[in-house]
């Protein structure tokens, strides 16, 4: 009896318990925020502020007669210009990036499949070969492609010799641009697909065969769906940068018929007073890509990305 009474007394004493754990939790809470601080600062200074800056510039108007001078305004003409004058550039960007993404997928999937399932001891070497191009700069590699695809190069030379090249050139054509984009972003397609294939339980693929699916059917109904998270990540990692790219067009593409990245580049750096239009173009590109990615992930997405 007495011990029971004692227990209830201790438990019922409000002075002892409720306040005690509070400082502990508070401290732990602060630690989490402190750890977040460097990242948050970085994002704030180098992402959010420039974005706000870009947004204000995209709405500015020029001083008539003073090229290069602007005043603060809410001028939506910049966006109208971006969507009308530069619609073909947007279309080209998305078309070329889409084609490059498709081609990269076609090249990358068998490569990733071979690395994951067939390479054996060659796997690491293949991995190094995929990553090795990153040891040289993006610009240099694209320059190298301008040599490979040049009229005097062996690719164009061979095709011309065989009369298989209508027009006679590869360099300075959209084909060269798409080839360059495909090449440059290929590793971003290979690596996520490889990761998702490599992670797949080989027993699950065997189960396909055990349940009356032949090799091709097992691939179509088991292996490919299981690698979809990797395919999704790979296509996004390829399409997004490819759509905004201007280097490949600059070094490999034709003089006319540029992509939106080139227009933004020119408006910012070459054309006096181009800042508002360049900003509006950047924002429009960003918004368009966001919408497309959203729809794409809604359509093909799985619960997890990679």
């Amino acid at each position, binding site marked *: 009896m007495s011990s029971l009474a004692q227990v209830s007394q201790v438990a019922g004493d409000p002075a002892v318990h409720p306040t005690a754990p509070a400082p502990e939790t508070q401290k732990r809470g602060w630690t989490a925020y402190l750890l977040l601080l460097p990242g948050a600062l970085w994002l704030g200074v180098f992402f959010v502020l420039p974005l706000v800056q870009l947004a204000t510039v995209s709405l500015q108007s020029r001083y008539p007669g003073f090229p290069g001078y602007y005043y603060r305004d809410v001028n939506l003409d910049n966006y109208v210009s971006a969507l009308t004058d530069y619609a073909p550039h947007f279309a080209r960007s998305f078309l070329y990036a889409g084609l490059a993404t498709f081609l990269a997928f076609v090249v990358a999937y068998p490569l990733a499949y071979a690395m994951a399932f067939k390479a054996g001891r060659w796997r690491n070497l293949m991995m190094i070969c995929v990553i090795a191009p990153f040891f040289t700069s993006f610009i240099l590699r694209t320059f190298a492609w301008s040599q490979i695809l040049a009229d005097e190069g062996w690719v164009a030379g061979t095709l011309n010799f065989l009369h298989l090249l209508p027009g006679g050139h590869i360099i300075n054509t959209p084909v060269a641009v798409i080839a360059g984009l495909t090449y440059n972003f290929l590793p971003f397609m290979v690596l996520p697909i490889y990761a998702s294939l490599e992670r797949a339980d080989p*027993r699950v693929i065997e189960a396909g065969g055990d*349940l009356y699916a032949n090799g091709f059917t097992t691939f179509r109904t088991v292996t490919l769906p299981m690698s979809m998270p990797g395919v999704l990540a790979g296509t996004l990692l390829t399409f997004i940068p490819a759509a905004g790219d201007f280097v490949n067009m600059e070094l490999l593409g034709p003089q006319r018929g540029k992509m939106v990245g080139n227009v933004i580049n020119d408006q910012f750096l070459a054309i006096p007073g181009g800042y508002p239009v360049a900003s509006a173009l950047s924002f429009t590109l960003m918004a368009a890509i966001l919408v497309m990615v959203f729809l794409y992930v809604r359509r093909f997405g799985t619960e997890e990305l990679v």
Partner: protein
Amino acid sequence: MAGFREARGDLKLDSVTKAFGDFTAVDDIDLDVPRGSFFALLGPSGCGKTTTLRMIAGLEQPTAGRVMIGDTDLTGSRPYERPVNTVFQSYALFPHLTIRDNVAFGPKRRKEKEAAARADDALELVQMTQFAGRKPAQLSGGQQQRVALARALVNHPEVLLLDEPLGALDLKLRREMQVELKRIQTEVGLTFIHVTHDQEEAMTMADTVAVMNKGHIEQLGAPAALYDLPRTRFVANFLGQANTGVGTIKGTDGDHLVADVLGTPVKILKSRSQVHDGEVLFGVRPEKVTVSRSQPEGAGNDVKGVVRDVSFLGVATSYLVDMPSGATWSCYEQNLDVEPLDLRPGDAVWLTWNPGHAFGVPVDES
């Protein structure tokens, strides 16, 4: 579907060998599993049991020998051509498909009508109907195990292969599933080949157990027969416990062989010994040994030892007894007496057993 072989009958392995480079995983195995039986392949890891199973499934091809069902030779055919399905150790459910689609996968590939309805029937058999719309990742291990079973059973294979299907479950669930598997096997009447390293599991469920070691089948038979009369040292030790001692056969006494085990004469029925002269490994099961404080009269074989340890287990008491030979014997006594023995470590005891329970196996082999 093209290539599918509608074989019926007993499963036969005819001198099947599988080598991986220098390593022979399965060495010249012959097996004959009657249609509709529950057959267990029991052995330690690396004994070749899973490789044997994978050869039956077609996931591996034998280096030599033939795999047959009835009169149909399945050797060389692909897994999807065989009337055989597997329940994989890790379940290997398709992570991107719902439970219903997982189970309907086989029937759909075989272009069967009402694949979804068949899947629902199979899910009902394993009591998983309410989870049909979920994804495998949303289920527990035990639930995934049931789905894996349904996914194989739905196809009504001629032979169902189970690769350590209960290995990942906790003890209580494993017991439940053992009973459940046996019920399902009786209900569907298919040939089940069950690979396991758990001797208790094999003995509980299977009609016939084949004990495998180092790529060979050591012994094959009904669980009770294997336990009662092991024919090799490996089987004696792997299937249950055995008190053993190396002895030399000195002569005969009627139907019995008389062997000398480090000074103690023991008798083994001639019919229960695999060797009849020279060295023999004498053995007797722990529960066949009676512990008493005084030397019993008229007992067959007895030997005096010293109690090392006593474990009270409720239904029984287990004793460890140091023998004069230096070995430690284990004895298992049911707690039937009104007056308990009340032995303490250090007490001298007499161990007796009926010679009819003793067995003799060759000493060699580990």
